[in-house]
Structure formats: C-alpha cells, structure tokens
C-alpha cells in the first residue's frame, strides 16, 4: 500500500462491447409523453380529500432574537386551522436531520432566534393558501436585532452576540481542518515558481423551475405518516425524517412525485416535508406545503458553494506542476446540513487532469446569517475545477508559454490509469489528450485565433478560453466522515437497487427506488433491461417505489444514477436470465450450457427450431409449477431484486494520509468558448462554443448531450450572472428572478457544439460513467479564460465570478485607468 492507498480488483461483469442493441442508442425518452400533454404529476399536482394548505411567515431579519409572537388575530381568522410557532413545533418534533458532527442544530420553525432572512418563524395551515397567507399577515412578531454576519472572512473572528450558535462555542467557525496529502513542503521548497491568487466563487443555486413541495397526512389510527414529496434519497436516509417527527422509522412512508428539476437542490429535502407533516398531525387533516419562489430562494437547500480561495501552485521553470496549497473560507450560511461534504467532493479531483505530487487544503467552514448551503451540480467540485484551471492559466502566462501546451505537458497519461491522486481518490480511466485534440478540432481554434487577430485591428475584443476539467461521478461518501470533528455515523454503503418482474404474458416491470428529478431514469432503465433480456423497450413498464417498498438506494445525486441503475439491472436481469434458461432447459430437454437468450427467446445454440419465447417461459414460470423440476429454489414467477453496491471504494487511511477511493468514476471534458466582449457595455457574446465530454460508454447520447448543453448554460449563469447576493444587513437582494438572473435563450449560445470521446470505465457495467454535472463543471473556468483572453490587450485578470456587465465594465475601467 502506497501513501495514496490501494486499488481493489474490478467487479465489472459486462464489458463494453460494439454489438449492443440498445445501450448507446439515442432512444426517445420514455418519460416524455405524459410530460408533454400536461399529465405528469408533480408535487403541487397532488390533491387529496380534506387537504389543507400551509403558508409560512418568515424572518425579515438576518439575525435577531424572537421576543414575542402574537398570533391571536391569525387564529381568529375564519378558515385558519392551525398556527404553529417554533416553540409549538419544538414540543412535537426534534431538530432537522444533519450530517455534521458535532451537529449545528436546525429547527423546522425557528425558536428564540432567527439566523437568516427567510427563516421560518410561524407556520399556518388553513382551508386554502390565500387564507393561510392572510393569516401570516396578521401575526405580530417582536424581534430584538442581533449583529448580522455577512462577510465570510469577517465571520472568522466573530464573537459575542454575532455568534450564531453560541452553544457550539464563541465562534462562527463551524469546522476548521487542515489536511495534507504528500510532501507539500518539500515540493514547495523544490519549486522554481509559485503562482499565488485569491479567487472568489459566488453563491448561486440550482433554481429549478419547480420549488419544493410536500403533501403530508397522518393516520392517527396507525400512528403513521405518509408524505408525498419531490425529494431524492428517500430510500437512502428518508427515515431520518421520522426521527425528526418522533415516530419510529416504519411509521413513515415517503412517496416520491416527479420533480420539476433539481440540479442538486432536492437531493435530500427536509424542511418542507417536516413542515407539512407537523401541521398535518396538528390539524388532523392532510396538509400541502408548496414553497413559493421566495420561500425557496430564501430558505431552502438551493444555495451552493460560496468560497474564498487563497491558492498557491508550485511548479518548476520547465512547466512541471508540483504541488497545490489552498486556504479556503467557505460561507455555509446559518447551518451545516451536509457537513462540509462539498469539500471532500472537491478533493476527489482537486488536481484536475494533471500530475501534481502533493496537496494541502486548509478549510474554514464559517457560519453566517444566510440561507444554508445545499447541493448544486458539482457539489463543490466545480469550484475546484475553476481554481486549478485558473491557476494553470496563470502559470502559463507567468512562464510565457501556451496555456494549451502547459496542459498537455502535465496531463496524466493514458497508460497511467487507474491513477491515485494525492488525496487518495482514484481516477479510473481517461484520455485527456484525445478529448483536448477533439475539442480543438471542433472549436477551430486556429481559425478563431486568426479572426481574433483581425478583430483586434478593428478594435474588437474576441477571446478564446480552454478548460480541461474532471467530472467525478458515483460518490461513495466514505470520505465524508473523515471531516467530522467527532465520530458520527460512518456509513460505507451507497448502493442503488432495482426490482424487476416479468409478468405471465412476458411484459417486464421495473421498479426504481429513486425518483425522477429531470433526468431520464425510465429511459435508462428501459434501455439497459432491453439490452440484458433482448426485449423491446416498449414492452417494459417503469414505476417508482415509496419507502415502504424501497430497497436501499442512494439516488441520482453526484452523477450516480446511470452507472448505479445499470449495475442494479445487470444484477437483477442476470437472476431472471438464469431462471429462464433453467426452465427452458427443462422444458426443451436441453443442457443449460447449450442455451442462449437472444431476440426475446431462449434458443438452443445451432438448432433454430428449438426455442421458447420469454412470454412462453413466463407463462410456464407463473402458472405451471408442476411442469417444473423438483427444486425448492425454483419458485413460481419470474422476478428479481438486486442492490448494486458502489463499484469501487476504499476507506480513508486511519492516519489521514489519504481519503481512500470515494469518487472514482472519472469523466473528463474540455470546453472551448469563443467570446466577444463589448468593452463599452461589458456584455459578453458567445461567438462559438465547443464542448467534448468523455463519460465512458454512452447509454443514450441524446440525453447525455442534453445534460451537457443544459449544464453548460448553468455554467454560463454561474460565470456571468447568477448570485445570491446579501447586503451588509443580511438582506437577500436577489430573491426574485427579476434580480437573480437565470440565462434566457438570449444569453445562451445558439449552438453548443458537443463531441464525445468514450473511454470506458474498467470498473462499471458496460464501462458507463456519470455525466450529469460536467457542463456546469467545465463552463465557468473556460468562460473566465475566454474573457481574460479577450481583454488581454487591456490587462484584465479574472479571479472572481460572476461577471455581469456592471462588474466587467468596472474591471475594464480599472484596467484602462491603470494603463492611462
């Protein structure tokens, strides 16, 4: 075992092959017909008898003590069923689930103290939402303001009344750790050059078009909750909601609805279902709580990484990269729901596609008077991409070498995989050179360089950016616990399950145990099962389990779904295939070794007439037990469940020399945008955009390209426009979409040219890798580089995002003032 750990044997059963029938085809989506005719059932479309509606009164203060609440007028309003304060809620439920240890306690309704604008102060259930909102307007709350903590670096030194959670000590540092991997000091001592930069990554969020919602009911007779909700991870850790509600885990059933987008923001929804459930139990009727947009922007899990980096990259004069050191201050807002999981995530690929010998990260997770952080497409790794790519660009500029050439020089080579990076995570496979060359071709970089030179003569500012980015997929979360200061749970399983059944007529049924949240779970499952059983996807029906029926399933976050459900279906279909062959062998009096499954039938090899269709065999399996051999294992029916474990993961080193393998299925991308900056207005226009991704074996190129393009436009939003911006008083000034600027089609490139390289994973079934997040993980550093390149004649440096016209104008003005 080296200092970076060891690599387990591969458990891959299905090798990538050229002769696949369904995997690799751009099949139309199974999910679409019902969505296209308005018949998809999203959370707000749920309607149950006697359902009441909730609204929430939220804090106008960033930080304050709640002195008193007078809800008498609200309670007297006709149609109001229940008014619940934080003190009321604390009597019937415990704090919300959290992964931080020691925890940062968070209540579903704040009591005693509010810690951010938008935090719930009183909840109301009423006959309809209009009345519930009227009631909120009638509630009088007296607050005693406390000092707001808004700046993450100032939060490092907060004391006294400015401390958000005094029970955790007189500090707003939620967690502080320094982790060192490899000989950092030696490498820095050996360096000829150290690039030092301060970067600022802005707080943005997934902002799906649908907010979070839940319909909860409580069966008093059974003592049992049912919650319909647009959450994920319900079959992984949904039971934690039961603990909050003070019922035993089997007294809660979570039923998934379609989710109208997530991008991470609905990974493990907790506030909304708990709110609906406590109200439902209190009023004795089902309660719907559907966030409106302000509920969501101010107080859900939508806010993502908000980081200050002090970064140092050590290298030799010949361009060899040696070591990376970062001091990170991450503004987590008022609570630490996922601990600092976003930073383990980032360390899965913090050295990018480069050979870098050692890494040090010094993290301070600070608590401020802002909405808590959650997950957003990249979960912190997109920031690491931005940092390493900006550093490599800066190093090339400092050395006076070509930015692309410096990348080529330092790439991990194709024959070095599987490759352990200093943090211990494994890159399973890759071909970074091939991806770069393909992108350079698609982008016509040489052609654009010529146009750029011509343009400069005409006073036009055209720029070309190149970013070579990792897209880690399929987390195992084993590294997660290493961050905690006190041991908490230390799970090592992160599986996904599936149930498959063939009915007596030969039709197939798949039950998925994680939800639809805008991805293509049904299409993927249909394609893979069709491949496995040699049947037509139109003969497969897909449904979703609730937690009552659920198998352990981590769900689609972290670009896991396609890899994991493919593994689960391979496992389940294998059991069904084996049974089909055994039954067929018996009925056709053949040796099972002479049989093969093809075109939906079990065939005796070399004897074309000797075959039985799956439908015939299913009929026998279901209804003709007495025609079967005497075998206790050969029970009636044709069904299988399979829980597929993470394909390759190891534990962190007990001495913290490495974090183990935790995010190893390593996709890669190269993004090359060509932009033109209008230096008078600060506007950025895309003249061209090329993106090549390597997600291993593609299951459905059409839907993968959908993720890449959609993710890239998310990345454009992050790079140019989007920011949850808090003023000095802690007011969120971009709570509305008139101010939080999501790219419209006018801000999006007309044509994002997408290319593919397929380097199959040696560890996953068929060699599939995840591909759900790469667009957003590759766009921002490439766009920053392109803008910097465009403004090179002015000497503008880009180290902070977003870059809306106002900010870019300010940078241009400063640069012009410097040169004047």
């Amino acid at each position, binding site marked *: 075992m080296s200092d970076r750990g060891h690599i387990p044997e591969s458990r891959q059963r299905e090798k990538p092959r050229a002769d696949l029938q369904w995997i690799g085809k751009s099949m139309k989506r199974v999910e679409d*017909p019902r969505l296209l*005719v308005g018949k998809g059932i999203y959370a707000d479309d749920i309607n149950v008898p006697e359902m009441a509606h909730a609204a929430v009164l939220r804090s106008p203060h960033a930080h304050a003590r709640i002195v008193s609440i007078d809800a008498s007028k609200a309670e007297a309003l006709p149609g109001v069923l229940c008014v619940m304060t934080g003190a009321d809620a604390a009597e019937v439920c415990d704090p919300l689930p959290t992964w931080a240890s020691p925890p940062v306690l968070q209540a579903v309704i704040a009591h005693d103290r509010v810690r951010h604008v938008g935090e719930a102060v009183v909840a109301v259930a009423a006959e309809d939402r209009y009345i519930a909102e009227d009631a909120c307007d009638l509630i009088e709350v007296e607050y005693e303001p406390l000092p707001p903590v808004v700046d993450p670096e100032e939060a490092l030194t907060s004391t006294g009344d400015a401390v958000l959670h005094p029970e955790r000590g007189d500090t707003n540092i939620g967690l502080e750790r320094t982790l060192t991997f490899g000989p950092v000091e030696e490498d820095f001592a050996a360096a000829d050059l150290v690039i030092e930069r301060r970067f600022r990554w802005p707080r943005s969020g997934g902002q799906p078009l649908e907010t979070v919602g839940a319909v909860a009911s409580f069966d008093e007779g059974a003592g049992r909750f049912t919650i319909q909700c647009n959450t994920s991870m319900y079959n992984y850790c949904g039971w934690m909601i039961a603990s909050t509600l003070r019922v035993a885990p089997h007294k809660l059933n979570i039923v998934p609805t*379609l*989710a109208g987008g997530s991008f991470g923001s609905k990974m493990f929804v907790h506030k909304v279902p708990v709110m609906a459930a406590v109200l439902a139990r209190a009023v004795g009727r089902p309660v719907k709580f559907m966030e409106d947009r302000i509920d969501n922007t101010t107080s859900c899990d939508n806010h993502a990484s908000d980081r200050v980096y002090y970064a140092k990259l050590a290298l030799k004069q010949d361009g060899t990269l040696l070591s990376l050191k970062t001091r990170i201050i991450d503004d987590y807002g008022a609570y630490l729901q996922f601990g600092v999981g976003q930073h383990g995530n980032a360390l899965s690929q913090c050295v990018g596609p480069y050979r870098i010998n050692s890494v040090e990260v010094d993290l301070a997770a600070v608590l401020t008077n802002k909405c808590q952080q959650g997950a957003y497409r990249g979960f912190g790794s997109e920031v690491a991409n931005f940092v390493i790519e900006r550093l490599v660009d800066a190093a090339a500029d400092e050395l006076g070498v070509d930015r692309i050439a410096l990348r080529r020089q330092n790439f991990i080579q194709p024959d070095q995989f599987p490759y352990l990076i200093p943090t211990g995570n494994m890159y399973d496979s890759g071909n970074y050179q091939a991806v770069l060359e393909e992108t350079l071709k698609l982008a016509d970089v040489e052609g654009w360089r010529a146009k750029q030179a011509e343009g400069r003569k005409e006073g036009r500012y055209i720029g070309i950016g190149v970013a070579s980015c990792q897209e880690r997929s399929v987390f195992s979360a084993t590294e997660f616990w290493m961050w905690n200061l006190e041991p908490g749970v230390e799970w090592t399983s992160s599986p996904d399950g599936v149930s498959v059944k063939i009915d007596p007529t030969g039709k197939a049924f798949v039950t998925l145990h994680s939800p639809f949240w805008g991805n293509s779970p049904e299409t993927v499952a249909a394609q893979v099962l069709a491949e496995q059983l040699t049947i037509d996807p139109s003969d497969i029906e897909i449904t979703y389990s609730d937690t009552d029926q659920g198998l352990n399933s981590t769900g689609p976050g972290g670009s896991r779904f396609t890899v994991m459900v493919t593994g689960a279906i391979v496992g389940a279909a294998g059991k069904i295939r084996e049974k089909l062959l055994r039954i067929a062998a018996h009925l056709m009096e053949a040796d099972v070794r002479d049989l093969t499954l093809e075109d939906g039938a079990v065939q005796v090899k070399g004897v074309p007439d000797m075959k039985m269709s799956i439908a015939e065999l299913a009929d026998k399996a279901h209804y003709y037990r007495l025609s079967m051999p005497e075998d206790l294992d050969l029970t009636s029916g044709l069904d299988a469940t399979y829980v597929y474990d993470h394909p390759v993961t190891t534990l962190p080193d007990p001495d913290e020399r490495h974090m183990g393998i935790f995010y190893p299925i390593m996709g890669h991308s190269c993004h090359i945008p060509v932009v033109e900056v209008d230096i008078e207005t600060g506007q950025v226009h895309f003249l061209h955009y090329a993106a090549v991704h390597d997600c291993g074996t593609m299951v459905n190129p059409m839907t993968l390209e959908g993720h890449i393009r959609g993710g890239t436009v998310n990345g454009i939003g992050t790079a140019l426009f989007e920011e949850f911006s808090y003023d000095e008083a802690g007011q969120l000034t971009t709570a509305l979409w008139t101010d939080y600027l999501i790219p419209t089609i006018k801000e999006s490139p007309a044509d994002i040219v997408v290319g593919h390289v397929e380097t199959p994973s040696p560890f996953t079934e068929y060699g599939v890798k995840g591909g759900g997040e790469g667009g957003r993980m590759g766009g921002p550093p490439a766009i920053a580089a392109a803008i910097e390149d465009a403004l090179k004649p002015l000497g503008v440096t880009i180290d902070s995002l977003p870059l809306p016209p106002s900010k870019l104008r300010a940078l241009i003005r400063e640069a012009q003032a410097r040169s004047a």
Partner: protein
Amino acid sequence: MERETISVTVNGRAYERAVEPRRLLSDFLREDLRLTGTHVGCEHGVCGSCTVMMDGVTARSCLTFAVMADGADIETIEGLGTVDAMHPVQQAFWEKHGLQCGFCTPGMLMTAVELLKANPDPSVDDIRDTISGNLCRCTGYQTIVESIQHAAKLMREDGP
C-alpha cells in the same frame, strides 16, 4: 371575501364558477378546474411556465386574475393533444429532446403554438425572440429551438 361569478371556456368546455376577485387564473385552472398541466414556477411573471392562451394570445396565468378571464376562451396544455394523438409541437419536442424535467414545457409549448400559428416557417431568430420570455433550466434551449423548427416542418407537411 365576496365572490364573483365568471364564465370561461377552457379547451372548448364552458365553465361557470364563483371566484374571489384576487384569485389568480393559474390557481383557478389548477385548483378549481383541476387542470394541473399549467405549471407555476416563479409566480411573479418571469419564468413563463404558467403561459396559457387567452382568446388566441399567450398570457401569464400567474399574473392574471381569474375575473379578468370572464368571457374568455382559454386554451391550456391539456387541450393541445393527447398521448395517443399528440399535437405536432408535442411530437416534435419528443423527437428532438426539447424537454428534460418537463416543468417549463407546457408554457414553452403554448408559446410555440402561438408563434407557429402566426408564422408557419419561422427563422431561428424568430424562434429565439419568441421563447426569450420563457425560462428553461434543463436544456440550454438549443433542442427547444430544434423542436420548434421540426414542429413547423411537421405542420407544413400535414397541411392546415
């Protein structure tokens, strides 16, 4: 609160209902008529998910009071086509992957239908102008443009 009686035609069917003057058309359609295909994304008129057709012109149902629709002829996504008999715009969005989560889709489709009625052969710029008021967070818009181009082609081939 006092209610007012309104008469509206939705997808060819006449309704008479008493509503509060403050009731949003989106809530009226979704809750009173149980036509939940019209989605509410931002409830402040930015995202366009709630777009419906009112007397042949697109309108944001989250910024329209139900009483303002008194006497109006409204079309929603439910009136456009069925799974077995899709409108060419629905068919085209399916074939060209013009949707992922499907939440913005009803508004996108109604907006596209309005464009294609007025302009059977729109340019890419026409399409980009038309849907610039509808947000989609999933697709990056490119396949939506392709879908609308494809729908125009299907409709031209089918004839009026």
